[in-house]
């Protein structure tokens, strides 16, 4: 009964949503046709090439045009790690070992060990080239974190130093914030670019964008690893296993 | 100011008249009651003898200040209400009429209604201090019953006020003189309601639970003897006179001289007395609810009649 009602309810909501979006249309220029409307994305695309010399427009948006969002985003991640720690915190004598249902086979352990360095390398590549190609700090960070996940899954006793994670995380965060504040130099604004922008499609181009993205990469990697590590260290339940 | 002495003399005369008439009526009633009960009964002047005896008796004990003040309060109520009732029609045919219209004025009816209940409170206080439970019981019954008959009584009077737009007893008398119709005929419902109330006021059977000699040892007066009882008795007599006179004034055209007064009051007096002789006693709540049934109905009818 409840299910039927919920389905009906969802049908209503879904109908209205679908109606709206289908009205908007797919793949066309959906902005209101009016002289007043100048979609910001056009400005972004234009400015990315002309002023920032960053080839990946998404990156320029994420880090520069809407860098403030990204700062918030990074904070959200930071907070979720903090929250996780706070929610799962228990006094030391309660804390147990990592729950292990079954040991990883030697294929997994060996493979993981093999894959770990290339994964780190790939991650680093992705966030260093964030302003040139698809990818960026978040993506790269996630890739690095997968590496750690692999190691944690493969080795029961693999530990990551909490302190090290915090230090990396904090430094990365501070870098972001300080670079943002450095924008005030020369009468600029927060997060304003104060470095030379270089030429398009160069590794060293885009001013502060790559630096921030690298910081973000480190930070995301550290934070995600932290999340995984914290959750993995959660002791299994007492009743069932 | 030159009248003040005459006023005082008139007041004293009124009091004496009321005392004598009241006492005599009381004696007559005892006689009649006895005859109806097939007894010999005391002579009609027995009350005077009793009064004389009580008056000359020494007071041996008392129960405190209120014990003294209670009867005095009672007397005040009787005398003061007497002062406000035109015993005879002012300016009537007899030369002495003006003596008996002491402090009458335009709104005296309301005042009378008010002051007439005052005595019971004084009495109650006096009785209360004696500490005799019978007194207190009698008092509560009396007060309850008073509340009972007050409604039809006030209704009856109000209906008349409504008809003639006045609150003066003298005006009522004058109206009856002019039209030649007694108000008991002009508004019979008011008369009936008032009569019931009058029966209640007299504390004769069936409304005599207050005194109820057999069970309460005479109720409120039970601790009083000698001069106390004398005061109470005389004030009771005066008060009976006040009630009768008032009723006659209002419903029966007033009295132009003493003879008419005596005839009318005595006739009126006989109604509750004779009814009382042959009826059984009501319990207090029965009495109260009785007053709140038919008399109240007639009272309302009277008001309705007056409005229409």
């Amino acid at each position, binding site marked *: 009964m409840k299910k039927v009602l919920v389905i009906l309810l969802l049908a209503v909501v879904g109908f209205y*949503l679908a109606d*709206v979006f289908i*009205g*908007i249309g797919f793949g066309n220029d*959906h*902005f*209101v046709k*009016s002289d*007043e*409307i*100048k*979609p*910001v994305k056009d*400005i*972004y695309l234009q*400015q990315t090439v002309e002023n920032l010399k960053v080839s990946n427009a998404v990156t320029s948006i994420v880090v*520069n*045009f*809407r*860098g*403030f*969002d990204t*700062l*918030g*985003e990074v*904070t*959200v991640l*930071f*907070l*979720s790690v*903090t*929250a996780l*720690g*706070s*929610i799962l*915190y*228990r*006094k030391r004598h309660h804390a147990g070992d990592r729950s292990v249902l079954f040991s990883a086979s030697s294929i997994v352990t060996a493979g993981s060990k093999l894959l770990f360095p290339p994964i780190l390398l790939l991650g680093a590549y992705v966030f260093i080239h964030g302003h040139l190609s698809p990818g960026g700090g978040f993506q790269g960070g996630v890739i690095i974190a997968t590496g750690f996940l692999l190691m944690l899954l493969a080795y029961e006793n693999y530990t990551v130093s909490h*302190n090290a994670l*915090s*230090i990396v*995380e*904090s*430094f*990365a*965060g*501070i870098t972001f*914030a*300080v670079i*943002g*504040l450095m*924008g*005030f130099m020369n*009468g*600029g*604004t*927060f*997060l*304003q*670019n104060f470095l030379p922008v270089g030429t398009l499609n160069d590794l060293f181009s885009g001013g502060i964008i790559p630096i921030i993205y690298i910081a973000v990469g480190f930070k995301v990697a550290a934070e995600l690893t932290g999340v995984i590590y914290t959750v993995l260290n959660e002791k299994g339940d007492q009743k069932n296993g | 100011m030159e009248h003040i002495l005459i006023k005082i003399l008139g007041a004293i005369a009124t009091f004496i008249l009321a005392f004598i008439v009241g006492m005599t009526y009381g004696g007559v009633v005892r006689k009649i009651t006895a005859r109806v009960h097939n007894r010999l009964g005391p002579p009609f002047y027995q009350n005077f003898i009793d009064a004389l005896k009580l008056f000359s008796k020494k007071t041996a004990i008392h129960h405190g200040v209120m014990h003294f003040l209670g009867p005095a309060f009672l007397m005040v109520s009787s005398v003061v209400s007497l002062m406000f009732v035109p015993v005879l029609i002012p300016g009537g045919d007899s030369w002495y009429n003006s003596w008996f219209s002491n402090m009458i004025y335009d709104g005296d009816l309301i005042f009378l209604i008010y002051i007439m209940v005052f005595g019971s409170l004084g009495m109650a206080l006096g009785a209360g201090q004696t500490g005799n439970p019978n007194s207190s019981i009698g008092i509560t019954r009396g007060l309850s019953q008073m509340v009972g008959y007050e409604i039809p009584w006030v209704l009856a009077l109000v209906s008349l006020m409504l008809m003639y737009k006045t609150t003066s007893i003298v005006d009522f008398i004058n109206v009856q003189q002019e039209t030649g119709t007694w108000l008991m005929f002009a508004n019979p419902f008011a008369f009936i309601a008032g009569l019931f109330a009058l029966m209640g006021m007299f504390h004769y059977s069936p409304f005599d639970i207050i005194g109820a000699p057999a069970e309460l040892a005479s109720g409120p007066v039970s601790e009083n003897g000698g001069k106390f009882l004398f005061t109470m008795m005389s004030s009771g007599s005066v008060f009976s006179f006040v009630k009768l006179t008032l009723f006659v004034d209002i419903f029966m055209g007033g009295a132009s001289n003493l003879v008419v007064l005596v005839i009318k009051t005595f006739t009126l007096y006989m109604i509750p007395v004779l009814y009382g002789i042959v009826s059984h006693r009501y319990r207090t709540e029965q009495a109260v609810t009785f007053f709140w049934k038919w008399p109240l109905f007639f009272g309302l009818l009277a008001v309705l009649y007056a409005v229409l």
Partner: protein
Amino acid sequence: MVGTPVLFIAIPLLAAFLIPLLGMIWKESVRIVPGLVLMYLMVLAVSLMGHVAHNGPIIEIIAGWAPPIGINLVFNAFTGFLVTLIIFMGLLVWLYSYRFKSNVEYEPARKYFILLMMLVTGSTGVVLTGDIFNLFVFIEITSISAYALTAFYTGRDSAEASFKYVMMGSLASTMLLIAIMLIYSQLGTLNMADVASKIHLMDPTLKAISFILFVVALGVEAEIFPLNGWAPDAYAEAPGPVGAAFAGIVVKAMLYALIRFTYTIFDLSGAFNLLIIIGLLTLVIAEVAAIRQDKLKRMLAYSSIGQMGLVMVAFGIGTREGVFAALFIMLNHAIIKPLLFFSGSYLVYHSKKKYISDIDGMGKLAPFTSLLFALGAFAIVGLPPFAGFWSKLSFLVAAADNDMVLIIALILAVSIVEIVYYMRVVNRIFFFKRTTGLLARRPTFNAYIVMSVLGIIVLMIGFFPDTVTGYIQAAADSLFDKTQYIHSVLTASIQ
């Protein structure tokens, strides 16, 4: 000027990233640094308020891109008023918690203070930002801090409360995103002022639907009626100061967002009626639920929701007086409710279940705390000469000017309900015999200070309401003046 508005965000974030490092060196710093930051922000807020009063709104451009291209922060009389309020409350909550958490171990304490600071920062960001999507980000910052703080105590119920909060919160953020996307897909911009200036071009149906989605999304956090199921649980299970922070900080910021959408961004006339309807629903249901509570904090939580309903009704009046009244109620609520939460949590400190009956006869054991609680109760039900009266009065005056007789009657009837449950508690404190053997806990020195400050403010507003009305009036004017807002934002350039 001591700084620019962006420091409201940047400094706490920097501090938040720094605290783990500092904590490794000196453990006490995790408690002190947030306080220092908040103090600095308080100074900043006050000085910026002074600046705004003379020189007009400050539009902070970020990353060098003038609106509508980049993100901007708007610090005008209205947002400044709220930011000052939020930071002031944050400071008090910090001061109150400073010792409150002294028996807590280092790790949780560090997290607590970071989360608290982020809660304040997120709320500040919500108020300051001039960008719809940025608003979403700050709402999420606030929410996640709030989730974590709700579940801060390691009991089972706090997790339950928090989980409900998360469920509702993430549904809300979904809807918020859909709404943002709808706006963007039509107008091609995310800047509030820009959107506001172009909203008339939008298709009415889409406009209505996106507004509805905004209402539902922000309504979850602003605790409007059918969406506030999480709120009483969260208030009741969160630590005392956090409950106070919710009432004094988070809700205010979220309501701000809702109001910003209603007043500035959208031009829907029916929106005000909707505000009134949901406000009344919220008010009535919450107060009605509050009267039947047997736990103190839960009762306060429902009462808080009810007050938010009242604020919404006041905003729904849609006149300058209405906005004034709404802001006044918000201010009073932001001061009184934390006072109640602070003193209330000391009154039930030793009680296991935190039942109201556990505070019987507390007046003798803890006279100061009890007195302040009573003061708060008297003030919040609007008894003169305390603070709540003036806001209620200005609300009623505003409503009467719009001939809302029935609404006034309804609200006053609900106020009677409110009186009943508050007075029941006050009676218990002062006029009941102590039944349980539980002793009172002496408030810490900091708590004394915090509660006294709040009490003094309550009295001050009660006796001299004009000390604050100037700011409120300016704030109301600022919110009301939509064209001025749009103009000032869109013409902003880097100073």
